[in-house]
């Protein structure tokens, strides 16, 4: 898939959010989009998914099946988890037993079992986010666009994101993922793009440890990992790796 000299602004009078963006995403690639809040990460991802149309330029060769996980799942809908996923599966042309088995698979996989018959509006933010993830995966996507997918997820669910990304890329799909919290550390082989001042810099080098650096290995309780990583990133430290000790 290619971004071909894309320009985008939200309204005629608004300034350009993105100017002359040209970039290529290869099949099987994982691209992490970095940048400050408001830099235009979400805009770029929505252009990739086809949610937004570029004002000038074009997105070329977008795969036919696109999964998009928005930053905030729209939970204000009168459906239960199962009803919603059934309806979203029907939009993808999935019906009957195939639809049911896909839905069961993702409900199981994402740990949504006890929320199956709960209304979307009554779900916690993280659980609703998982429903958002499930609807994007009902049909294996050729392009998966994840907008801050870790937001609101608990630590147990956070490790699912890299697994799912690996499965999609393993099947030849491309993944575009935005991240402002340094979770990229858990995505081996990811390509880095940076959005700044309305342009996209591709091929941002990963922060390598330099000889003067010292590498610390820390063990922290699950519940505190999020906060600690955010704090360390904010202080300018580079997080190289996050892993789980399995019992």
């Amino acid at each position, binding site marked *: 898939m290619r971004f071909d000299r894309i320009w985008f602004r939200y309204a005629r009078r608004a300034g350009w959010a993105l100017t002359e963006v040209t970039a290529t995403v290869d099949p099987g690639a994982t691209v992490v989009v970095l940048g400050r809040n408001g830099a235009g990460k979400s805009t770029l991802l929505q252009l990739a998914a086809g*949610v937004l149309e570029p004002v000038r330029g074009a997105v070329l060769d977008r795969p036919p099946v696109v999964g998009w996980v928005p930053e905030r799942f*729209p939970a*204000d*809908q*009168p*459906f239960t988890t199962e009803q919603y996923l059934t*309806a979203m599966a029907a*939009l*993808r042309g999935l019906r009957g037993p195939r639809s049911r088995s896909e839905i069961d698979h993702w409900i199981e996989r994402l740990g949504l079992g006890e929320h199956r018959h709960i209304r979307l509006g009554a779900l916690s933010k993280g659980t609703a986010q998982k429903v958002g993830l499930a609807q994007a995966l009902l049909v294996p996507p050729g392009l998966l666009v994840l907008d801050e997918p870790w937001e609101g997820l608990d630590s147990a669910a956070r490790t699912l994101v890299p697994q799912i990304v690996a499965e999609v890329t393993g099947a030849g799909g491309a993944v575009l993922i935005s991240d402002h919290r340094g979770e990229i550390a858990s995505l081996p082989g990811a390509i880095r793009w940076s959005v700044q001042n309305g342009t996209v810099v591709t091929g941002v080098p990963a922060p390598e440890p330099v000889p003067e650096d010292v590498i610390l290995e820390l063990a922290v309780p699950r519940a505190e990992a999020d906060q600690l990583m955010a704090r360390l990133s904010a202080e300018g430290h580079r997080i190289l790796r996050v892993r789980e000790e399995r019992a």
Partner: protein
Amino acid sequence: MTIALARMRLVALVRGGRILAPLIAGLVVLGIIHGGGQSPAASAYGYSAAMLFPVFAWLTKVVLDAEPDVQRRLARVAVGAARESAAGALAAVAAGLAFTVVAIAVPLVMGAIGPPKPGETSIVAGVGLGVLAHVLALGAGVALGSVACRAVTRTVRNGVVVLVTGSVLVVVLGLRGSIAPWSVPPVMAVSRALAEVPVPSPGAFLLLVGWAVVWCGAVLAGYAAVRRRRS
């Protein structure tokens, strides 16, 4: 997939209760029109169709605006831009047709349709003309409501302005002696035609249908063109 999306939206509309406001408004309108004694079928349905036009437009706006913006965009990613916008209009037409059945049945059930006097059309023919008048009003209402939806107008205020201004213009520019009758759909013209005794020739109705089709087609094409850019 367009049908699946239209169905999903109608289910959400009914379950979420958002259908209630336009539904009640429509029933009130029907009660007012038909509550005042008996009248011939054709003219009763002619009034009903014209009075329900703004209700159909509002119903369409409610159908298109019921979903959160992000859900509309998720649907767009799933089925594509063209099918997503078509599914909205389709859901509105389905809801409007269901209400048309109610609008045709209410005066019959209430006994508001009087037996035809000499020179008037039969009740059966009057019902047929009534269905035609309602379908034309529904088409015009769906067209106006589509361009008043949040995805097109972006703000609630602009949406309401389009809906109200459009409804008023359809009435004002549809009056006898209007300066630009062709600029609005023939909602008032159809209502007048149904009140005439005897009713105009089939040719006259064919002209009205053609006029309505061209007007609705043009406005819906505008809606589709705008929605290609605005998700």
